[in-house]
């Protein structure tokens, strides 16, 4: 085998860590079944994920010119199926840590014992897909990894077993099937247009130069953007998001909102990276329209939500638009801004869902006066919301918004910049509305914080997430420096 491709196991470690976790959990379950009372599956999985994240961060410090490569074909072709530069490595670490956070929230929710192994296995499998898709540079790996990141998530939603969860799972399943079909179509068209099974800028440039192949390539990009748009919750492919978020448990919601979005964004970055430098204004329109629609629809609907989870679901849709805004510039600065944005969003969202899990609040009204009843949870939630709104003291939120707008402004994509301006203002209204509830005086019936003692691992997630937001707010370079 080594004659055909070279394999560097350490480079593959971020994806192999969750695989190892799956093996450990399954073997362990065979030896000592969880339904007899073992509660070790989720902690073991979390440890493996954190170890994988540490290994992934190794690549974040590298020079972008010399990324970690492996699974390389022999010369003269020399293409590598796995290429992880600093940006990819940091995104991988983000996926792994977000999945670990989801596991922690699951752990505190006291799932039925027979579910823990299944939950851990599904989560680890989806994480493997998410990590792999970020580094995939060929159509086959990319497609398989992206599906691996999605399908277990559908099962996680259904696992709860309620009728509502089944509905949520069903809509998610139908959506992901449709998106899979689109992605396969897109991949086929891409192959037809470029004659290359890898995402390489050179073959895209060659295809773009030929008008006939360009038309096919545009069609391919349309299908691929739509397919990833489902997973990223871009309007008009967003309809499953609020339903799935609201019907499943918070651990899974956190996974969908943070880890899945990171994987989807990483997948989109792989496609757009190949288009940078050659593609023209048609692609800008293809990316700009869903971005602007998500920004506007997501924030406007979020403005009317009273259910905390639904508000965060619609805010996810708006934030997905923000992730795509810098990509419309089709520049390498735009790629970095997009990665920075999605990482910041994931950290803030993880903290927000962590707080909801810790306090048990599901509506805005239930968080009334949280800043006084439970200063840790209230403070963390307020900071996370301000980061999402892009207001100091959540400086990192403002910085990534500035970077996100800077890319299209530098390239003169004014309509997207205009939509972003409107979305900033509406977004501030959305998040400050909730912050106002948090800082309000507690009502008569509100009891002091509860569940605080039981939700230990969730508290760890909240504290660590808040620490990340604070550090990156003071030194935004700590985040952006790891993106090349």
């Amino acid at each position: 085998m080594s004659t055909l491709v070279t394999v560097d196991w350490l480079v593959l470690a971020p994806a192999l860590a969750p695989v190892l976790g799956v093996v450990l959990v399954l073997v362990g379950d065979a030896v000592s079944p969880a339904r007899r009372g073992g509660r070790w599956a989720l902690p073991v999985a979390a440890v493996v994920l954190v170890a994988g994240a540490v290994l992934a961060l190794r690549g974040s410090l590298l020079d972008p010119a010399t990324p970690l490569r492996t699974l390389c074909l022999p010369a003269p072709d020399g293409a590598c199926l796995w290429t992880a530069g600093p940006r990819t490595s940091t995104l991988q670490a983000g996926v792994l840590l977000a999945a670990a956070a989801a596991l922690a929230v699951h752990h505190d929710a006291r799932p039925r014992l027979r579910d823990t192994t299944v939950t851990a296995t599904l989560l680890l499998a989806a994480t493997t897909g998410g990590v792999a898709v970020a580094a995939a540079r060929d159509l086959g790996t990319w497609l398989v990894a992206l599906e691996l990141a999605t399908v277990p998530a559908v099962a996680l939603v259904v696992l709860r077993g309620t009728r509502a969860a089944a509905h949520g799972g069903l809509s998610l399943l139908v959506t992901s099937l449709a998106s899979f079909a689109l992605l396969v179509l897109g991949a086929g068209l891409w192959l037809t247009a470029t004659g290359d099974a890898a995402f390489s800028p050179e073959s895209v440039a060659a295809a773009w130069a030929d008008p006939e192949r360009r038309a096919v390539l545009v069609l391919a990009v349309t299908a691929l953007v739509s397919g990833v748009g489902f997973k990223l919750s871009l309007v008009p492919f967003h309809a499953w998001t609020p339903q799935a978020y609201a019907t499943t448990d918070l651990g899974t919601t956190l996974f969908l909102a943070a880890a899945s979005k990171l994987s989807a964004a990483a997948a989109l970055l792989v496609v757009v990276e190949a288009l940078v430098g050659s593609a023209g204004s048609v692609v800008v329109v293809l990316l700009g329209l869903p971005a602007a629609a998500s920004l506007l629809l997501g924030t406007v609907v979020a403005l009317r939500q009273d259910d905390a989870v639904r508000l965060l679901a619609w805010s996810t849709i708006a934030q997905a638009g923000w992730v795509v805004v810098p990509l419309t510039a089709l520049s390498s600065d735009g790629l970095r801004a997009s990665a920075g944005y999605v990482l910041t969003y994931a950290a803030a969202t993880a903290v927000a869902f962590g707080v909801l899990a810790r306090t048990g609040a599901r509506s805005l009204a239930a968080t009334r006066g949280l800043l006084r009843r439970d200063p840790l949870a209230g403070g963390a939630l307020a900071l996370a919301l301000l980061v999402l709104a892009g207001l100091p003291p959540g400086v990192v939120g403002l910085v990534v918004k500035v970077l996100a707008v800077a890319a299209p402004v530098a390239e003169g994509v004014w309509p997207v910049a205009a939509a972003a301006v409107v979305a900033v203002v509406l977004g501030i209204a959305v998040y400050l509305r909730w912050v106002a509830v948090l800082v309000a005086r507690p009502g008569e019936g509100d009891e002091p914080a509860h569940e605080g003692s039981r939700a230990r691992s969730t508290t760890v997630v909240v504290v660590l997430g808040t620490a990340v937001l604070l550090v990156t707010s003071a030194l935004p370079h700590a985040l952006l420096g790891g993106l090349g």
Partner: protein
Amino acid sequence: MVVSLLLAVPAAVGLWLVSGGRALPVRPARWLALLTAVATAGLAVGVVVTEAAVDRAWLPELGVRWSFGTDGISVPLVLLTVLMGLVVTAHAWVEVPAGGTPATFLGCLLLVEAGALATFTARDAVLFLVAFEVVLVPMWVLVGRYGDPHDPRARTEAAQRFVLYTAVGSTTMLVGILALVAAAGTADLRELAGGAGAALGPGAQMGVAALLVVGLAVKVPVLPFHTWLPPAHTTAPTAGSVLLAAVLLKMGTYGLVRLPVATVPDGFGRLAPVLAVAGALGIVWGGLVCLVERDLKRLIAYSSVAHMGFVVLALASGSETGLQAALYANVAHGLVSALLFVLVGGLKQRWGDVDLAVRRPALRETSPRLGFALVIGLAASLGLPGLAGFWGELLAVYAAWAPAADRPRAVLVTCAVVAAVGAALAAAYALRVAGLVWAGDRPDPEARRTADTVGVERWVLAGLAGLVVVLGVAPMLVLSVTADAVATVGGAR
């Protein structure tokens, strides 16, 4: 180093007061806030005297540096800000509004001060924007939580309106700054002012200038964008009103000088006539509203709109005198409005409301010290010679009368005439207020007397009134500081 400390001290203490030290009782919190304000003032003097600066890498991705320092344009505003920091923290001995813990209230005041200092010392366009945004959330808390306790709905609305209007402005400005930075290739304000911005093509200059002017006009506020100001002032607690009028509005005019005027002078020059007309209309409109307004706090808010009209008109004139007038009028309005808001806040605390339609005993008889401060404030507001307000208005009208060569003279001269009429309106409404409040009715022996000012409030009022007189007598104190820096600003000819 000293500059970083100047920003870090109020920011750190403010953050601690709103988070960890939230439950601190009022007495230690008050002393802590006051001592912080004193230390900040000391540091500010140190920065101004030593001309300290700091410059390190902060966000290399966007070419943004952690670059703070002062020059002639920012020195008066930095000193005004630390002075207002002292005023509002000292004012906590007079009034700490209900609505939350006293520590949070004082922490928010310090955070606003820190944000304003960062805005006035930032030497980088993007950093300026970040600093500009820092004041939003604490000010929102001050208005929304600690504002007028009678009407929670109005409070929420005023706070929301303040945040959203300002956010529209700053986001528009953000796009302008990013376009400028992308085209000029640097975010350093000194390089941009030194010719990097002027190198842009005429179309780009015009576009950037339009975005920057519209964005900052919301904050100033210039006439069609002013509607957030009166409700915010009416509901904000006294200390919040003082900061809003004396510091936050100045961030808008300072931004106009630093960004469009200095970096894209030709683009700004083409927009200047529009700005001049908006300024002149603001003067007249503010004056007319003040003639009929019943709520005294709202009346002073509208008079701020009128005074800011003079500043904008002076900026639009494009001459060096105009810039000097704008910077001077900025400081003068800061002092006068602070004096008036402390005074009216005190009256509101004593009377429960400041409705001018309610007949009350004459202030000059029941509480002569309050009455005297009111007369000084109103006189300065109407531009009486010998007080601070006079020089700003005089220089502004003069600058508009003799604008720079490339400005349309007819438009600006017309605006100067309109502004002069507006100044007469100011005299009319100031006399109206003086007649109703100061001269008032003969005291009814049955009516409760208005307690006169004592303790800290007296010293705060005396200090502000004294400064208003000093600046009026010796305007060169400010003008000589700004003169050199103004000469180097690209827009001035």
